[in-house]
């Protein structure tokens, strides 16, 4: 309904939780594409470890360098708030995506997908193969990972309501590390032989769980699902260790982030609004929150359509 004013070149930074993970890299891929068409001078920069302090340092430097918009997926909702508020006070547009910050510290938040929808998708992904009586192990990243906890909350709610016989037998953590996730996965399979499904809502964790199942030759007996980019899990999906795995289109999300950043920097977006992104669709802004999409469930049939 509106055309975006791209007359002025603006500087927009994308700050992931850490550089070096392919999920965030996929966002960058989409963002770069979009930035070209939006006359955006784009910078992808983040800390080398997933620390809030590292992000704060970077955000502060971006403020000093007078960026027009900062987009960020945060390691911690509250720790980032003071520096983001300072950025907003200087007239910099702040857009959070993926993992939110506290609402008063950003202009808009792009939620990957609604939490209940994701919870439902995760549970359905195992129920279809492990049955409604599945004994589920959860393999998450860290005990205080905000977004994982939100999803797991939704998983448990949906599970209790829909499949009362499904049970979570244990919760383990892989610290987002491939090796620790693999060890945790193997440990689950050894220590809890009754487990028939692993829900691993974290990139490294899903890969670790799938690798563990494959190592022990338990394909077909135990099923894994989670939230990982298709490149990471492609092989496991083809091998049948992972039958279905929900996520969303990370590349598309990256594009949307740039659109919202451009709109926010132009002061062209209201807290409750609608807008259309060419090639992606129409989005509603609801109290500054934009939901990117319904979960996109990767299966052996569709996974080769996605490359990120």
């Amino acid at each position, binding site marked *: 309904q509106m055309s975006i004013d791209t007359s002025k070149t603006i500087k927009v930074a994308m700050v992931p939780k850490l550089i*070096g993970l392919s999920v965030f890299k996929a966002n960058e891929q989409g963002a770069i594409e979009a930035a070209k068409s939006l006359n955006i001078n784009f910078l992808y920069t983040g800390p080398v470890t997933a620390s809030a302090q590292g992000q704060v340092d970077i955000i502060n430097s971006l403020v000093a360098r007078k960026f027009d918009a900062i987009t960020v997926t945060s390691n911690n909702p509250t720790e980032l708030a003071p520096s983001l508020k300072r950025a907003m006070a200087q007239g910099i547009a702040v857009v959070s995506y993926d993992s939110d910050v506290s609402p008063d510290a950003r202009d808009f938040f792009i939620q990957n997908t609604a939490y209940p929808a994701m919870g439902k998708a995760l549970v359905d992904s195992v129920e279809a193969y492990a049955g409604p009586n599945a004994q589920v192990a959860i393999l998450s990243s860290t005990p205080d990972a905000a977004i994982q906890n939100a999803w797991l909350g939704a998983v448990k709610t949906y599970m209790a309501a829909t499949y009362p016989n499904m049970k979570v037998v244990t919760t*383990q953590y892989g610290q987002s590390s491939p*090796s620790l996730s693999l060890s945790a996965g193997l440990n689950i399979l*050894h*220590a809890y032989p009754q487990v028939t499904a692993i829900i691993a809502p974290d990139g490294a964790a899903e890969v670790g769980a799938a690798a563990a199942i494959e190592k022990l030759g338990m394909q077909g007996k135990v099923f894994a699902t989670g939230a990982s980019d298709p490149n990471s899990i492609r092989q496991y999906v083809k091998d049948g260790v992972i039958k279905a795995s929900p996520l969303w289109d990370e590349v598309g999300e990256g594009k949307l982030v740039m659109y919202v950043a451009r709109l926010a920097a132009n002061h062209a977006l209201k807290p409750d609004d609608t807008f259309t992104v060419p090639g992606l669709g129409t989005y509603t802004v609801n109290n500054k929150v934009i939901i990117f999409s319904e979960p996109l469930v990767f299966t052996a049939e569709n996974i080769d359509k996605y490359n990120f």
Partner: protein
Amino acid sequence: MNSAATATSEPGHRAKPRPRRRELREVTLLVATFVVVLGVGALRPSFMSFSNIEFMVLSSVVLGLVGISQTFVIITRGIDLSVSAVLGLSAMVFGLLSTTSSMPLWQVLPLCMAMGAVLGCLNGFLVAWLKIPPIIATLGTYSLYGGLTFIYSNGLQVDQVSPDFAAFGNGNLIPFLPVPTPVLALIAVATAAWFVLNHMKFGRNILAIGNNAAAAYNAGISVRRTLLAVYTISGALAAFAGLVFVAYTGSATATTGTGDHVELQSIAIALIGGTAIAGGRGNLAGTVIGSVFLSVVITALVFLQVPAIWYSAGEGLMILAAVTLGARRSSNP
């Protein structure tokens, strides 16, 4: 007071030679490991299943390899904090290489060791020639090599390795022997290290340097070259461990190694194993058993259904217990 005299033996001869007290830390550790295995096994029989034991040994291989090289470095009164960064870089480089090129393993292996050797060599140069205290030198190269990993990977990560690699990480080299290749590699490296340390000049020179570098130099040992070699070996072994890591797990990210604090863990197992941080004394068997011990403890915590947040506390307590039990007491602080 003269009546107190009872000495009868020949003048100049000591009444009794002091009994030779050797601390057998490896035995203590072995016993501790068995106690944990049997104890937990009694409660949860699947803990003693072959597949679980194989897993516990397998998951100690990477740490064991790094621990061996760390033991050598610590014997020289040094420390190598950069092992985790070297491990990560090697895992990243060779993991990506295995997905992008079709280089066979027998070519990758020497290449990997050579890369690690070069990185280790720089550490050695900093320590032996520029006289930077090892902890500082390797702290510096830790950031340098860690940075290289980021630059090289440019945000990519390894999710899957070639079948060649996967077979190396998981398969059995000798078909009828149910021992995974990485475990064989660890055994081979440990045996070679033991031989070097106890039966080769190079190994004895390492010990001599750790005891008193100045005296070793005065005795004609080329301290600098030996140190250089030790750090080079450390780098090569850490890189090899990285290769084993990526072959076994099939994945690597830019924070592999550094993120898991392999450097601290490897120091911990060397010290648990009975190697003295002050140098001059090393216990390779202790290091290897120490790495198995650590992985047994962590797995035991899972089997005992301890909530996941307490794993690291359990690990910490077991490390403390391992170094305290049977430790030698000296009268001076």
